[in-house]
């Protein structure tokens, strides 16, 4: 039996995870950081219940390279599966160890003990605590191995703690974000960047920059130019002027076209990523060519569009190193990359996680941390760097566009017999630490020998561009062909659910097209191809919730659409039904979702993630598309990059299955793909015409209606 979490291998001792404070508190350490997803509450709850302590007895310490276990990135819906499993095991081992010592001290059996608020109570009425046992009885626990495969675990009755987030009050009313930290003798800095991440200037107008009101220093190294001042408000205005004063050189970009036109025109590296031949198919008769469909679906480039621009602080340390405060999703990788860029040892660089505005993958957080670190190290300043709104929407990494073409055929019984999917897309991960070089925007301009490393996509089975490209359904012969596009018109990297948004949209659209072509009900057609009882259950449940069978005819202007996926084909299950009204544009009226995430650790936190995933996916799928022209990225503000408004928020009805006998499954990203699929299918049901290219904007709907009169090559 293997250990329950890979984090236990990198942090194998109890003291890597827990410290008993002199004040009688429990300092919990984690490598998984609070990004607004509520993970601090969920992990605290796991630890409290494993140790038998109250949330009020907890000090939470996460994402500090000096103290925390290195658990990699807080990403990929892994924080409960990996970070939560780790803490469950640590808590179980530590509790069991202390229980033996407590029973001895209290002269009773372990089975007689009860745990309350960190105190072990014996039937005699005597009690002792973790802290007493550690200090008075000298119980050696700190070097306990937590990575053993079959530890003896002792269960003791305890009150179950239900934890709510404790970070909200400060974030609502005070200095709850990295943006709000202040250092002694602190300077503000703004980096001078053009309208494209790889734009530069043949000549920097230094004399003019120095005269700008609010600019007290202009710091230049190679193509890294920082404006520095004490008055942040004045500096922001100067930064806007400085951008206008600079004559920018923009790399040659491909002309903006729809993703399904642009992506196949790019240079590609193609390979067959997966080929599975079904035994049954070979025995069957040739497929029914009347029911062979070949369809293309796409999504454009999508921005993280965090509400608060990325921010970081840094200061030099006495040993010649630096301290950095950052909202990075991976402080250890960031530390390693900064150390490498600045020729420092890892111990000379300390990165401390502090909350930022929501990010949904790799946004500007790491880049701005390097900006601050570089200034602090090179010019010896205590500095706070915050990006502009424009920086956030132009030079930070975007989610990659994808084109998905699927050819599928049915046999005479109306069952899918062959499925051949091709995906044209870029690398969906270019995070610091991924690939061979430095993945830090500022390093490429400051350091003459650094340039963006060769892009690599995440391979299957998790996949980047191919994430969820393999359908969850039994489809007979399955082939996945990957057309990997190395160059892109902008920076691309991880955005929530990676390729799953486009792939599930494509698969679920085609499932409806196939069921429609063969006269089958979309729900029955899906169930016919799904053996997994948990998959079948979420689909059947959501159908009941939405009263699926009374959805009415197509083409009335009101439509219902269904979709299903299991995230990464191994994490949480999600089935979803959307109800839309289509007139000049698509308005989503209601969304029903059923999610099976195994054992639910923190119900409200999971609800919040599902609600957020649905609403964000509605925004992406109906509204969003990064725009560019020969002057760079042109969707540089909220007018040019609109996102979901409160006026367009539908009713939500979410059901969580919650089976405590099954392991918890990552589910922060489960909803994005199914939501896109359900919206596409609902629009097709409302209009009687299918739009296959995201976003489902008025322009794309008109295009789909125009093209619906033309024959589709099949």
């Amino acid at each position, binding site marked *: 039996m293997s250990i329950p979490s890979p984090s236990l291998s990198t942090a194998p001792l109890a003291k890597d995870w827990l410290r008993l404070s002199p004040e009688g508190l429990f300092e919990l350490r984690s490598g998984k950081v609070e990004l607004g997803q509520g993970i601090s509450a969920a992990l605290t709850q796991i630890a409290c219940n494993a140790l038998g302590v109250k949330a009020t007895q907890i000090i939470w310490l996460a994402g500090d390279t000096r103290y925390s276990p290195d658990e990699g990135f807080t990403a990929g819906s892994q924080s409960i599966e990996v970070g939560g499993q780790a803490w469950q095991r640590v808590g179980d081992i530590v509790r069991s160890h202390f229980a033996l010592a407590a029973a001895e001290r209290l002269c009773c059996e372990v089975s007689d003990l009860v745990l309350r608020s960190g105190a072990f109570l014996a039937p005699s009425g005597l009690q002792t605590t973790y802290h007493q046992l550690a200090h008075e009885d000298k119980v050696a626990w700190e070097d306990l191995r937590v990575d053993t495969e079959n530890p003896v675990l002792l269960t003791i009755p305890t009150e179950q703690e239900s934890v709510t987030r404790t970070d*909200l009050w400060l974030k609502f009313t005070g*200095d709850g974000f990295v943006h709000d930290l202040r250092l002694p003798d602190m300077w503000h800095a703004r980096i001078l960047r053009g309208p494209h991440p790889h734009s530069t200037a043949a000549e920097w107008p230094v004399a003019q920059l120095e005269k700008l009101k609010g600019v007290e220093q202009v710091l230049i190294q190679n193509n890294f130019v920082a404006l520095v001042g004490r008055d942040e408000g004045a500096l922001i205005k100067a930064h806007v002027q400085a951008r206008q004063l600079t004559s920018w050189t923009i790399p040659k970009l491909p002309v903006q076209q729809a993703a399904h036109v642009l992506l196949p025109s790019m240079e590609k590296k193609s390979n067959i990523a997966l080929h599975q031949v079904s035994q049954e198919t070979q025995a069957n008769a040739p497929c029914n060519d009347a029911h062979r469909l070949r369809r293309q679906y796409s999504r454009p480039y999508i921005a993280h569009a965090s509400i608060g*621009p990325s921010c970081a602080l840094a200061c030099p340390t006495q040993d010649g190193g630096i301290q950095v405060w950052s909202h990075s999703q991976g402080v250890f990788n960031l530390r390693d990359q900064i150390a490498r860029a600045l020729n420092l040892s890892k111990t000379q660089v300390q990165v401390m996680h502090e909350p930022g505005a929501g990010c949904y993958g790799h946004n500007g957080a790491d880049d701005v941390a390097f900006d601050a670190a570089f200034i602090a190290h090179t010019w010896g300043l205590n500095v706070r760097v915050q990006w502009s*709104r424009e920086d956030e929407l132009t030079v930070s990494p975007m989610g990659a566009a994808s084109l998905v073409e699927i050819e599928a055929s049915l046999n005479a019984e109306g069952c899918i017999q062959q499925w051949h999917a091709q995906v044209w897309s870029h690398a969906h991960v270019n995070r610091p630490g991924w690939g061979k070089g430095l993945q830090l925007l500022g390093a490429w301009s400051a350091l003459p020998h650094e340039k963006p490393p060769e892009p690599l996509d995440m391979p299957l089975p998790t996949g980047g561009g191919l994430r969820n490209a393999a359908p969850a359904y039994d489809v007979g012969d399955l082939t996945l062909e990957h057309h990997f596009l190395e160059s892109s018109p902008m920076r691309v990297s991880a955005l929530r659910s990676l390729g799953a948004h486009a792939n599930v949209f494509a698969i679920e659209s085609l499932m409806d097209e196939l069921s429609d072509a063969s006269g089958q009900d979309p729900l029955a057609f899906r169930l016919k191809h799904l053996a997994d009882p948990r998959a079948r259950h979420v689909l059947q449940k959501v159908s009941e919730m939405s009263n699926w069978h009374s959805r009415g005819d197509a083409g009335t202007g009101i439509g219902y659409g269904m979709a299903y996926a299991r995230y990464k084909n191994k994490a949480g299950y999600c089935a979803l039904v959307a109800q839309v009204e289509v007139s000049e544009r698509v308005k989503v009226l209601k969304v029903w979702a059923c999610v099976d995430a195994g054992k639910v650790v923190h119900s409200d936190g999971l609800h*919040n993630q599902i609600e957020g995933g649905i*609403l964000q996916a509605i925004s992406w799928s109906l509204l969003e598309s990064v725009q560019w022209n020969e002057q760079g990225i042109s969707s540089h503000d*909220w007018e040019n990059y609109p996102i979901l408004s*409160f006026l367009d928020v539908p009713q939500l009805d979410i059901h969580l299955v919650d089976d405590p006998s099954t392991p918890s499954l990552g589910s922060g990203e489960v909803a994005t793909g199914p939501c896109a699929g359900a919206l596409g299918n609902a629009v097709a049901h409302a209009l009687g015409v299918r739009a296959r290219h995201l976003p489902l904007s008025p322009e794309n709907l008109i295009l789909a209606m125009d093209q619906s009169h033309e024959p589709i090559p099949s």
Partner: protein
Amino acid sequence: MIKLQHNRDQVSSTQDPQGDLLHFLREQCSDASVRFGCGSGHCGACTVLIDGQAQNACTTPVWSGEGKHIQTAKGLPQDEVGRLVLAAFVEEQAAQCAYCISGILVRITGLLKSQPAATEAQIKDSLSRHLCRCGAHARILRAVLLAQKNIQHVNTLP
């Protein structure tokens, strides 16, 4: 010199009166609850009440606050309506990253003071001046409706 009231404090600015209220509040008044989001009045993260009216602090010059009462999220715990709005947002856990929330709390406090019986459509319209990227919209709306109910309840107490 510009003089104004910041929550319960009388403050004055000797800095450039053309400077924006956002940075005056954040830097000179040490009020981090006024958040920078876009600097162009599009996202609502920096919303404050100026004599009860919701405004974007990022596009408001300091001079226009002369003699006025500026309320921010930092001051809501001391405000009888603001306190109930805050409590409802905590109860509903109405946030994810929470970067957008301070501005929303301020606007909703202003709205429920001037229109305690605002309809759901009016509430949504008011919220539409704010952007939320995490998708916390549904629970934000629930929190506002809860706050409204609680405020109405308090108002009916003898």
